[in-house]
């Protein structure tokens, strides 16, 4: 049956972002041993990323090296991905679960005449078609969708698949040359950018561990307890809206319905009550831990493990214990 699987790369400071590595892991996990896995990457310089694909065992990388991709919108990029997918003889394109990836899927679906889905946690071949599972309603339900037709574009959810082990191979890179996308797609300009405040750890949506703090911390000067716990775990810091609305932490750290949706391996909620608007942003985390002094707080209904107690005592002890076992 099947053609190649194309994995769409995304660069951050010249390197592939973690979600792309996961997409390569997904490609391996879902395709048979004979299925070619092909990489795609666009950017001002694609050499380093091409090598990274090689390190992950992807021998064939399609590249669009063009200075315009430093600041170009996704809209102009879709034509290049579609061309690469066609050149590679792909019937499936896997797109990383990032903001870039989310923006690409719908456009690519039309461009490449493929069925398109996002936020996917599981891909399978069943009865001659791709079938996907995805959480909906903020993780309160899941749906299975069947992708009819010869081609599919699948946007993955972060952390749905594990990165593959390194399996270095020699890489061959081939330039992609589609018909030039219409000029108006190149016109929007990124005029500035600044780093989103994310503390010193990994970014909230990339991180495999997230520690979030809520109003239970009482005052901004206590939030360092959360920062330190996160640092001991190499985790990203998040917050409830109570915290971001009060200005204790920037809104870029807000988890929930009107903030970011995260699905790390481990989510620690510290002094967060578990309002439904917060829950929908973190309920699909693999393991949830809550620390709260109120045993009836709704957060304990979604948590896997709970400590009922005063965070001002529990959190420092936990940070110390983690430091201890980590250095042991």
């Amino acid at each position, binding site marked *: 049956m099947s053609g190649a699987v194309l994995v769409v790369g995304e660069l951050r400071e010249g390197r592939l972002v973690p979600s792309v590595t996961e997409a390569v892991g997904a490609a391996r996990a879902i395709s048979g041993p004979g299925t070619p896995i092909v990489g795609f990457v666009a950017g001002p310089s694609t050499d380093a990323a091409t090598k990274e694909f090689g390190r992950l065992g992807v021998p064939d990388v399609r590249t669009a090296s063009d200075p315009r991709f430093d600041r170009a919108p996704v809209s102009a990029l879709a034509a290049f991905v579609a061309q690469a997918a066609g050149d590679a003889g792909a019937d499936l394109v896997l797109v990383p679960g990032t903001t870039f990836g*989310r923006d690409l899927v719908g456009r690519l679906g039309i461009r490449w005449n493929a069925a398109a889905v996002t936020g996917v946690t599981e891909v399978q071949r069943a009865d001659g078609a791709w079938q996907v599972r995805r959480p909906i*309603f903020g993780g309160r339900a899941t749906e299975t969708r069947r992708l009819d037709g010869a081609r599919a574009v699948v946007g993955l959810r972060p952390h749905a698949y594990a990165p593959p082990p390194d399996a270095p191979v020699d890489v061959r890179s081939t330039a992609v040359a589609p018909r030039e996308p219409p000029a108006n797609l190149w016109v929007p300009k990124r005029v500035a950018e600044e780093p989103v405040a994310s503390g010193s750890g990994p970014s909230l949506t990339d991180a495999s561990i997230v520690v979030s703090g809520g109003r239970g911390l009482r005052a901004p000067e206590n939030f360092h307890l959360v920062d330190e716990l996160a640092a001991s775990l190499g985790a990203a810091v998040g917050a409830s809206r109570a915290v971001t609305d009060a200005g204790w932490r920037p809104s870029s750290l807000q988890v929930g319905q009107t903030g970011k949706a995260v699905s790390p391996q481990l989510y620690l909620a510290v002094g967060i009550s578990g309002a439904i608007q917060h829950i929908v942003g973190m309920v699909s985390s693999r393991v949830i831990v809550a620390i709260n002094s109120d045993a009836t707080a709704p957060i304990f209904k979604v948590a896997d493990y709970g400590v009922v107690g005063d965070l001002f005592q529990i959190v420092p002890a936990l940070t110390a214990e983690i430091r201890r076992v980590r250095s042991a």
Partner: protein
Amino acid sequence: MEIVVCIKPVPEPETRLRAAPDGRILDPEGVKYVLTGYDESAVEQALLLKESVPGSKVRAVSFGPSPRAEETLRAAVALGCDSATWIDSGAEPSPDPVDVARALAGTLRSLPHDLVLCGKQAGDDEAGLVAGALGELLGVPDFGYVVDLRWDAARSVFTFHRMTETLQESWEAPGPLVIGLQQAWNDPRTAKLPAILKSRKAPIDKVPVPAPDAHASRSRATTFALPPPRAGAKLIEYKTPEEAAERLVKVLREEAKVFP
């Protein structure tokens, strides 16, 4: 400025979810469909722009079955949208969002638009596919995850921010443009009672859904499932904070296997 805002009727957030008898989709029986989340922000954003750019008009467009699509459109009119277009989806209860974009594009081609606003994603299926597909179909750029969209009249460009994993980006682009909105610069307003009453009689332009393209690849829902109910947290028993910490770390390592 001609602004079109695309809105989807979505089950209200408190809805108790359960599968329809055929097991494919959410059971719509007894569910109230409303304007929610990002779509509410998109309407708010459209109205803010209208108020800041003299001579602007906002048209709300919705794809969906009766009566939920009309009701959602009336809610948008009550908030201040000038006109409304309903694409009658007929009976199809759970279309592919890309097909929805195809229907929207068909309608938008005959409506003036300098700006097409959508919510970043719908509150139910959370697909976030419409803005991108619509941009490609209309041949214009699109952006998701947009906050703080403004019109710079002196330079005739939209300016906006996007939050990515690590950056807050600032962009400029002339229209026409499709935007998947994350957040407007104000919280969504609520409608006043007289406006709600008046919206009940507002004219709604009805257009038929175009025949689906038989050759298009598409996805269709095959099962709708609820996760097994969470058992509730396993509580750590302890006498001292140190003991709580030690036991928690132990279960995270040995039982949950999430910790180093």
